[in-house]
């Protein structure tokens, strides 16, 4: 019956009131393989995994799940975990104030006469950490770990539960390149031990690197499946299957019209507010011209975001000297408000955490950074507010029923468009975009790229911070590399390639 | 969507309905019987009453004199947390209903805004007389004036109603007299139990927010001060001012800490002979404090004849208390109500007290000192307390 498959989901259909989220989806996963699932946001990947892990209990969906040849009827997550299916969510679910050991055995403590046996737990933790290649003290408090390390702890936790199928939901989305690579290696290691991995991912290069099989889901249906041979995958084919159309070029064509220097920064020093003596920015100097898109490449923690936020009204770290000129005029921006007044805008990397008030509607968000623009006689004018939001809804093609709906009802791509609208409404000259396409599906990315080009064509100076080197190479006109707070290189995008950039991002020039 | 909305509405209504039926059972029915006539009565009575305010009694010209039968009387009590107020609630209910009135009795849980609203609701309910045992006698000004404007008589019960023109009379035990009695009982006890003068004593006062408290103290000091001056009595701590001796909110625990501090600071090598205490709760706190400090039990006065203290007096731990029989106070109040609702107006009285705005007629009752010697006589008609006097 099982035919070498450890897991078979057959003809799964799941409907929510009014919406068919999954329709007749079939997924077959071979034992000890790495199986990638890709699809646009909202295609149904997460719903499928929730069905598998018992978040949606047996009976709330149609279809059958076979695991190791047996028909399964999970009532909740505990059931599926007991069977050996563990899911690691995109947002990590560990308790930051507790230790690694405590987190790994949370809800699963090793008890003796009703009391926790710490010695045994720590010993086991040490073994598990070794397995995932993490060399830290089991007593380390989670919040002191980096995101990549936390993810490894999550996997260690899964291993502690005797996992047979490990589901990773966009595991590398918040990791930098080296952590991502580390994680992919670990997945290959787990595969050797006979553990099956299901990986949900947008990143086609990762899929090519590790997976054995790819299933593409679109609009709640399985549209395609490919075996990946010897690390090769036809990216265009997958993209076509995902979006239902062929994207000729992932980055739109653009010819820059570069003008005068708008922003010039020199000798910029910022100290970490939490770790005295640690410099976040060391003597940084760079410039951006009008109509130019300048990329900033650097690993997570290299100081890209820190540099940008310190420029944006000293929003991060302690300022330790430096000069900033806008159109040749020296400016001191001591608050975000002053930065906005001086026509600087910053789109943060963490959209939900820093970019949006999820309780607000689209119209309130769009005008949030420039309330003065919608005032009539000192009071906010709802007509002007509505006009502003309608304008961006049209020009950015924000998909929504009404501009009065909450931003929490929008997809990631549309949310990002709303954030961009908010900053476009401040009419900035200098637009800093920190990871503007993170967690956004391919189609929406393309639209945002086009928008960035339009803004550049309007003569704005654009700074693009990104972890994805292909994105920088595809979008930027000029690229700076950052390593440990220092700017280590400046390369014209035409001459740059990934290897060059990576080198400068990992060693001091 | 439609269904959801309907459910929401239904839920809200059911919610509201259950709340009401849940509590409406108690009194709802009896009260609705009389609603028709009462607001009118109150409204029309107003002009008459406006001139009749003050001491003059009202006479025949009152248009439609409500008979003793069928009047509505509101009783607003501060709370039911002490024995005398709890007794008052029961007695008012019994005696008012026995006299044929409908009684609305509400306690305010020591909250001024609550009491204000309760009095207003009594006016709304057509009360013709409202008896007010105030939480704070000076904070009901505008509400009581509203009652006056609506033609309702207001009788202060046990405490003075200050700072308002909307009060027709006060029924209370003479508070200065009470203080005198407390002081005399203290002196008598000292002579009986503590041998020859001089005697070491300490003084305690009641809660400053209660207008009676300074009066008790004044009464007591009128007896004690001459003896302090001639050296018969020695206030060892030197604290003889009311503000020094007062016990905020009549709080027993505050009195006990003050006594602890006084004993620790002044009585390390001498014995305390007597303490003037304004009420029974404070008296017991004082005695407990002395016992804890290893002192012989001093002669301590009291007030209210609380059950616990009656036992203590009987067993000799507390020398005396002063009974202010709630029953007598309620009876007096009800007799005034009878007079008012039979059209005879406020009864005559010689005593008045200025409440800051007007002179209010005061109906004073004499309190009774209780010691071990006379306890059985005093409580002869009070089976509950008599039962406490076991041998």
């Amino acid at each position: 019956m099982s035919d070498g498959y450890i897991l078979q989901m057959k003809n799964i259909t799941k409907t929510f009131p009014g919406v068919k989220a999954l329709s007749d989806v079939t997924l077959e996963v071979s034992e000890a393989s790495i199986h990638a699932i890709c699809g646009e946001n909202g295609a149904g990947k997460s719903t499928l995994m929730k069905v598998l892990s018992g978040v949606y209990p047996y009976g709330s969906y149609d279809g059958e799940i076979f695991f190791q040849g047996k028909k399964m009827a999970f009532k909740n997550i505990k059931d599926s975990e007991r069977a050996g299916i563990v899911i690691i969510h995109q947002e990590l679910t560990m308790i930051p104030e507790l230790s690694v050991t405590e987190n790994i055995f949370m809800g699963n403590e090793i008890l003796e006469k009703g009391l926790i046996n710490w010695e045994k737990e720590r010993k086991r933790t040490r073994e598990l950490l070794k397995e995932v290649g993490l060399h830290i003290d089991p007593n380390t408090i989670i919040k002191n770990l980096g995101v990549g390390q936390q993810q490894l702890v999550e996997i260690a936790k899964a291993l502690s539960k005797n996992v047979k199928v490990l589901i990773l939901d966009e595991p590398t989305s918040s990791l930098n390149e080296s952590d991502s690579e580390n994680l992919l290696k670990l997945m290959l290691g787990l595969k050797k031990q006979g553990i099956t991995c299901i990986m949900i991912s947008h990143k086609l290069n990762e899929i090519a690197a590790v997976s054995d099989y790819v299933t593409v889901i679109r609009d709640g249906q399985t549209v395609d499946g490919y075996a990946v041979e010897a690390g090769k995958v036809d990216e265009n084919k997958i993209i076509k299957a995902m979006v239902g159309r062929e994207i000729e070029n992932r980055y739109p064509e653009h010819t820059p019209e570069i003008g005068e220097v708008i922003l010039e920064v020199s000798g910029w020093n910022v100290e970490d507010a939490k770790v005295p003596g640690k410099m976040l920015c060391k003597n940084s100097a760079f410039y951006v011209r009008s109509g130019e898109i300048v990329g900033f490449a650097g690993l997570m923690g290299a100081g890209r975001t820190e540099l940008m936020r310190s420029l944006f009204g000293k929003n991060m770290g302690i300022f330790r000297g430096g000069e900033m000129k806008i159109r040749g005029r020296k400016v001191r921006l001591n608050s975000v408000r002053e930065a906005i007044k001086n026509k600087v805008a910053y789109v943060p990397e963490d959209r939900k955490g820093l970019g949006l008030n999820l309780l607000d509607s689209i119209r309130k968000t769009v005008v949030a950074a420039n309330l003065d623009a919608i005032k009539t006689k000192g009071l906010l004018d709802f007509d002007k507010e509505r006009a502003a939001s309608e304008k961006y809804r049209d020009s950015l093609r924000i998909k929504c029923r009404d501009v009065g709906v909450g931003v929490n009802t929008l997809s990631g791509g549309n949310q990002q468009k709303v954030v961009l609208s908010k900053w476009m409404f401040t009419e900035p000259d200098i637009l800093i975009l920190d990871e503007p396409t993170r967690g956004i599906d391919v189609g929406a990315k393309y639209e945002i790229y086009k928008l960035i080009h339009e803004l550049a064509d309007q003569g704005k100076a654009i700074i693009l911070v990104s972890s994805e080197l292909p994105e920088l190479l595809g979008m930027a006109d000029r690229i700076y590399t950052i390593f440990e707070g220092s700017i280590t290189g400046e390369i014209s995008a035409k001459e740059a390639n990934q290897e060059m950039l990576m080198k400068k991002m990992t060693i001091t020039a | 969507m439609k269904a959801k909305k309907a459910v929401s509405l239904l839920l809200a209504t059911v919610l509201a309905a259950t709340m009401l039926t849940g509590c409406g059972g108690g009194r709802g029915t009896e009260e609705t019987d009389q609603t028709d006539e009462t607001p009118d009565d109150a409204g029309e009575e107003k002009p008459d009453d406006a001139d009749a305010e003050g001491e003059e009694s009202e006479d025949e010209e009152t248009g439609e004199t409500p008979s003793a039968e069928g009047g509505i009387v509101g009783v607003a009590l501060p709370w039911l947390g002490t024995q005398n107020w709890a007794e008052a609630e029961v007695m008012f209910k019994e005696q008012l209903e026995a006299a044929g009135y409908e009684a609305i009795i509400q306690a305010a849980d020591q909250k001024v805004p609550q009491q204000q609203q309760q009095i207003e609701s009594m006016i709304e309910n057509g009360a013709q007389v409202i008896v007010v045992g105030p939480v704070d006698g000076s904070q009901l000004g505008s509400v009581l004036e509203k009652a006056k404007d609506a033609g309702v008589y207001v009788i202060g019960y046990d405490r003075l109603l200050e700072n308002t023109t909307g009060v027709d009379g006060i029924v209370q035990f003479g508070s200065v007299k009470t203080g005198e009695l407390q002081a005399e009982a203290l002196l008598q006890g000292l002579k009986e139990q503590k041998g020859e003068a001089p005697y070491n004593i300490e003084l305690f006062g009641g809660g400053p927010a209660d207008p009676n408290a300074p009066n008790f103290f004044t009464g007591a000091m009128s007896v004690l001060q001459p003896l302090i001056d001639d050296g018969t009595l020695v206030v060892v701590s030197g604290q003889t001012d009311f503000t020094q001796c007062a016990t905020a909110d009549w709080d027993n625990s505050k009195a006990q800490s003050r006594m602890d501090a006084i004993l620790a600071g002044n009585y390390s090598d001498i014995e305390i002979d007597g303490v003037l205490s304004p009420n029974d709760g404070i008296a017991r706190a004082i005695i407990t404090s002395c016992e804890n400090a290893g002192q012989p039990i001093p002669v301590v006065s009291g007030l209210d004849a609380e059950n616990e203290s009656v036992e203590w007096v009987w067993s000799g731990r507390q020398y005396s208390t002063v009974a202010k029989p709630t029953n007598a106070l309620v009876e007096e109040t009800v007799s005034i109500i009878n007079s008012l609702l039979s059209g005879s107006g406020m009864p005559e009285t010689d005593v008045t007290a200025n409440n800051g705005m007007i002179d209010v007629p005061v109906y004073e009752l004499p309190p009774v000192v209780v010691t071990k010697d006379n306890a059985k006589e005093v409580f002869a008609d009070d089976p509950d307390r008599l039962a406490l006097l076991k041998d």
Partner: protein
Amino acid sequence: MKYVKKVLGEDLRQYTMVVALVALIIIFNIISGGKMITSSNFQNLLSGNAYVLVLALGMLMVIVIGQIDLSVGSVAGFTSMVMAIAARQFNLPWYLAILIALAIGTIAGAWQGFFLSVLGIPGFITTLGGMMIFRGGVIWISNSISVPVPSELKWFGAGYLPEWGPAFTGMNNSTLLLGIIAIAAYVIAQMRKFAHSGDVTGKKEEFWPFAVRIVIVAAVIGYATWLFGSGRPGTSFPIPGLFLMILIILYYLITERTSFGRHVYAVGGNKMAAELSGVNVRRTYFLTMLNMSVLAAVAGILFVGRSTAAGPADGTSWEMDAIASVFIGGAAVSGGVGTVIATMVGGLVMAVLNNGLMLMGVGADKTQVIKGFVLLAAVAFDVYNKKNKG
């Protein structure tokens, strides 16, 4: 249902509490045999609860920024006691005494705001300290004795609008005038809205929903005018109610139509995002706490005016009534959510409940229990609704 939505707007849930309020009033009126809906009772309702509703206005903003203020009762008690002492012992005229009360409220608010915004001590702790400090302060400066206030102040807490003009109206003409102004203002606002309705979308809205709204609101205001105005001669729409109305309009404008109001919601919804949008978070915290204490002083003045004396226990547990009103009005404990109007409805639900139960002769003990259940039911209902929305 479609037509109802056109009149009332898309989000009908916000009317749940209004429906509950109206239902309560009607049910109480039936049970009490018509004693609920009378001129004098409605006057009582407003003058007896204005101080809580005024506090709730400030508390709403405090809760929206994600904080809590436990000190409001004590601040109200303290400021009004200072006012009473200033007037009685230092013989200051009443208006100076009021100014002093407001000034003290401002200082108290600045004090709390300082600890929250500059030192970053959570509002709960800051104001817990304030609660003790100011409560202790009241007892200290008053020696636990109530202090009568000048009779002029009675007007603030228990006064009525003047009687004038023709008698044939059968009403207090000041109240009548107010009602007419209110109706006119609403009609003008609606007509203007209708005239501009097509400006943005290009599609003019239908007229009839505007007409229906105007008729309904005019009828409600008209009835209220008659109810408040037709009481015993000399009574009218009460002065504390008038102050409350002015403050409601003012705070409605502040929360909905000013940058500061937006900032309050932004800080409560996502502090970091607000900061990155140019909101001065510390300033917003500071001003919100400051505002709360000023309103506490106003509440204290209204209450003391009604009581004719400032008492040492004034304000005890008022903060809880204010907080309950805000939450019944649908605000979120985590901040960012809540409106002025809903808070006022929430406060009125509590007030009507209190008033109705008193009219029925239900004791304070049971009333307390019922109010507790209502608070829980209202919030549970809200949470249930929100869950089923997504």
